[in-house]
Structure formats: C-alpha cells, structure tokens
C-alpha cells in the first residue's frame, strides 16, 4: 500500500512539471486564441538548452533554469514575429498550420544537430529516504522549481501593471487598445512568456529523465490533456490539473504497463471534452 503512496507522491512531483508546461500552452490560448503547436518543439529545445548549458558550466542544473527561461522568452518573441503575428485575428486553422510549420522546422534542425539518440543531464541531487522508499532529489527540485515559476507567473499577472495588461488583452483586446494598451506588444510578450514556460518545463524534464529531440511531443500531448482538464485559457488551473494528472499516473504505474497510460489519459481527455467542456474547474456558464 505504501508503495502506491510513494508512486503517487513521485507522480505528483512529475505532474507539477506537466502543469508548468501546460501553463504555457494555456496562457497563449487564453491571450490570443492560438493553439501553439510549437509547444513540443520548444519543450525539446528547453531540454537541449539545459543539456548544452550544463556541458558549458557544470553547476547546479537548477540555476541554469534562469538562462533557459530568458532564452525561451527571446525565442518566443522571434517565433511570434515569424509565424504568429501575421495570422492573429484569422481563423484558428491558420495559426495551427503556421505554428506546426515552425514545429517541423525546429524538429528538423534539431534532428540534424542531435540525431534522435537519447541524451541526459548528468546531475543529481541527493534524494530523501522515508522508510523503504527514496524520492529522487531531482524530482523534488524540479517540482519545487515548477511551483515557484508558476507562482511567479501568477504574481506577475495579478500584481503588476504589464501583467494586468496581459489579462486585459485576454479579456477584451479591442477595449484594451482603447485604454492605450498596445495589443501587439502584449501579444508578443505573452507569446514569449508562454514559450519560456515550455522551455523551462523541458529543462526540468531533462533533469529527471533521458530525452531525445522528439521527446517534446509526448509532453505536448500531456499539456493538451492537462489544459483541457483545467479548462482552456486558465493558467492557474493548468498547474493543478498537471499535478492531478501526475498523481493519476503515479497511482496507475504500480498496476499496469506504462504503455497503457496514454490510452487511459486520452480516454480521460475525451470524457472531459464531452462531459465537462469548460474543464473540471470551469463554470458551466463560462
């Protein structure tokens, strides 16, 4: 019994990283109604960003999160002006296609540079042993980092002027313009932050598991499940839903083969889509 509990706690730790990734997807959707299909590629870039930085400066890997986040922000702004700005306000299919194109470009370049063989970041923190079970230090540190970043984002969105401008644009873009808020500047920044969250979560994953340039795809799909669980466009809910998904995985892994888990997750995805279209935390009237 305690084995299941330990597995669930580990799931919860990993799940907070899923949640962080989903926050990026959710923020971008909430602010500009763009389903960002570069998400998986950006997660993968976060993984390799961490890998390369760690190769350059061997320090505590979690300190390297800051440069990864900064690079993610800049990358996001570049991608916004390459592929997103021109299709804002047009049908959602347009932004799906243009972000998918960027995704393919990044994956193509990444495959050339790194092939598809697995990499890992050779850094580990001491774990915590409780009774017969040891929780790996990296999983704990990754979870703490994810929660700290998520809280920082919430504070930014609810307590600062630029953060509130982002929420205003998400709420009503035309009215935000009337207030003197440049919606283009806000969309650029919001996309940058969304990508920074994706790269940060990728960097965190790279400290927990081995990865390839294609690994982002799996986390992208999990992000979709999490985002739908939370209700689209609700970044705070996304973190919580990510934790729930991790918990579910943790509870299931002792009993069934890992390869069955996507089936269960996507089964849940479909059920939530049909039964609770506003997410498990959403209001029926929203």
């Amino acid at each position, binding site marked *: 019994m305690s084995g299941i509990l330990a597995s669930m706690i580990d799931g919860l730790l990993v799940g907070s990283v899923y949640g962080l990734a989903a926050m990026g997807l959710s923020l971008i959707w909430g602010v500009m109604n763009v389903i960002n299909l570069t998400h998986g590629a950006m997660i993968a870039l976060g993984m390799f960003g961490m890998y390369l930085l760690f190769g350059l400066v061997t320090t505590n890997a979690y300190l390297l999160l800051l440069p990864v986040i900064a690079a993610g922000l800049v990358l996001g702004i570049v991608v916004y002006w390459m592929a997103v700005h021109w299709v804002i306000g047009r049908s959602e299919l347009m932004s799906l296609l243009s972000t998918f194109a960027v995704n393919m470009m990044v994956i193509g370049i990444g495959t050339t540079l790194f092939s598809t063989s697995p990499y890992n970041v050779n850094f580990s923190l001491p774990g915590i042993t409780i009774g017969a079970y040891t929780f790996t230090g990296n999983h704990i540190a990754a979870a703490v980092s994810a929660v700290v970043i998520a809280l920082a984002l919430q504070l930014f969105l609810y307590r600062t002027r630029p953060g509130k*401008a982002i929420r205003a644009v998400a709420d009503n873009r035309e*009215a935000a*313009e*009337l*207030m003197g808020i*440049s*919606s283009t500047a806000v969309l650029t920044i919001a996309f940058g932050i969304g990508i920074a969250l994706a790269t940060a979560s990728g960097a965190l994953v790279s400290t927990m598991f081995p990865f390839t340039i294609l690994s982002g795809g799996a986390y992208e799909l999990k992000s979709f499940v999490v985002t739908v669980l939370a209700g689209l466009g609700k970044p705070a809910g996304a973190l919580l839903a990510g934790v729930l998904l991790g918990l579910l995985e943790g509870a299931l892994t002792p009993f069934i083969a890992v390869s069955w888990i996507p089936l269960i997750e996507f089964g849940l995805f479909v059920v939530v889509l049909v039964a609770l279209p506003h997410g498990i935390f959403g209001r029926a009237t929203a």
Partner: protein
Amino acid sequence: MDLALQLENVESGYGEVQVLWGISLEVSSGKMTTIIGANGAGKTTTLRTTMGSLRAWGGRVLLHGEDVTRLSPHAKANRGLVLVPEGRQLFPDMSVEENLEMGGYSKRARKRQKQNLERVYELFPRLKERGKQKSSTLSGGEQQMLALGRGLMQEPVVLMIDELSLGLAPVLAQQLFITLKTLREQGLTIVLVEQNVHLALAMSDYTYVLAEGRINIRGESDEVAKMDEVRRAYLGR
C-alpha cells in the same frame, strides 16, 4: 474657436459595405456635441472610425489640429482621445478596481491616476462598494457607470461616448447625463452618440444629425430641436 476634434470627409465601412460617405464634424473644446440619427445611420461607425478601431477609407481625423487618421487606437488613447464604446466592453474577468486601473494605464493618465480614481468614486460611490467584484457580476447600470468611470480614468482630452443611456432605467440615464453636464462645465470636451434624442438635444451645445452615412443637419442644439423635420423624424411630434 478652438477645435478639439475634426473629421474631414471621413469614409469608412465594413468589408465591402460602405457606411460613411464623407462625414465632416467639428467639435469645439469644452462643449458637448451630440450625434443623433436613426439605427444604422452610421453613428457608432463614425466613433469607431474616429478612434481607429475601424480603418478610415478616406478623409482625415484631426485631434487639436494634429492628423491622427492613421494612428492605432492605443496611440490615440495615449493622446487623450477616449471612447466609451457601445456595449460597455468591460474586462469581464477583472475586478471593478482593476477595470478602473486599466483606464489609468497610459502614461499621461498614470500621473493623475490617484486623483482620477477619487473623482470617479465620488461620482459613482457604487463602484467603490463593488471594488473587489468581477465586473461581469455588476448590474447593467453599474456596468455603464464603470464604463464611464474607466473612460474618465483615462484623463480624456476628448471623451466620446457611444449610447450612454441604452438599456438604462430613465432615472439612471438622467443621472448619468447630469454627471456629464457637470464634467462639461468643468471644461471637458464631450462627443455623445445618443438614441434618446430628447435628452441629447436638451443637454448638448451642438448637434449633428446623421442619416445614411451623411451629415444631414447641423446646428446649435436648441435650434436643431425647433426644426420641423427633426421634430417629426426623431421627436415624434
């Protein structure tokens, strides 16, 4: 006479459909100017084109003599051209306080944000009571107060209001008009699009009558109120 806002032969529309066929308006500083006309005459389109939410197909918009035709709405807002839009267009997921705070977003409005907030709370004490509530939970009248309050937070040079009284109880509409009158006496330039023609003519200094995307009649409001065609068409007598 000091002109705050001028429109010169402005043309505009939606998609392929032209709505405005050369609108020319002159708004004097410190006066209240109203635009009246039937539904679909182009009143809202005029304001949206002035603001830049809708692109002008032709003609010019001048703010205190400066050509601002091609500026985006946020650039115009930063120069003090303020539109309280039709349908209020609040930020529904943000609190009343935050909505007002967004009104004080621009650099020029930020400087006087504190004084302006006090003034808005003085005009509409209800908003202070509801400060922490999400704006979507307000009643229609309160939402209209918030839209107007948010506009005042913007430190307007010219305040344009689209349908102040629409959907409001007559008492409340009257109250808002009196508020506007006070503001105008304090020197604010106001442009009002209004479906309540009685009130509009009684309260304003100058009136434009819009029909089918053209200016039909213009004049001092008390003169316009006496014109037979206006009485027949808009005042029903």
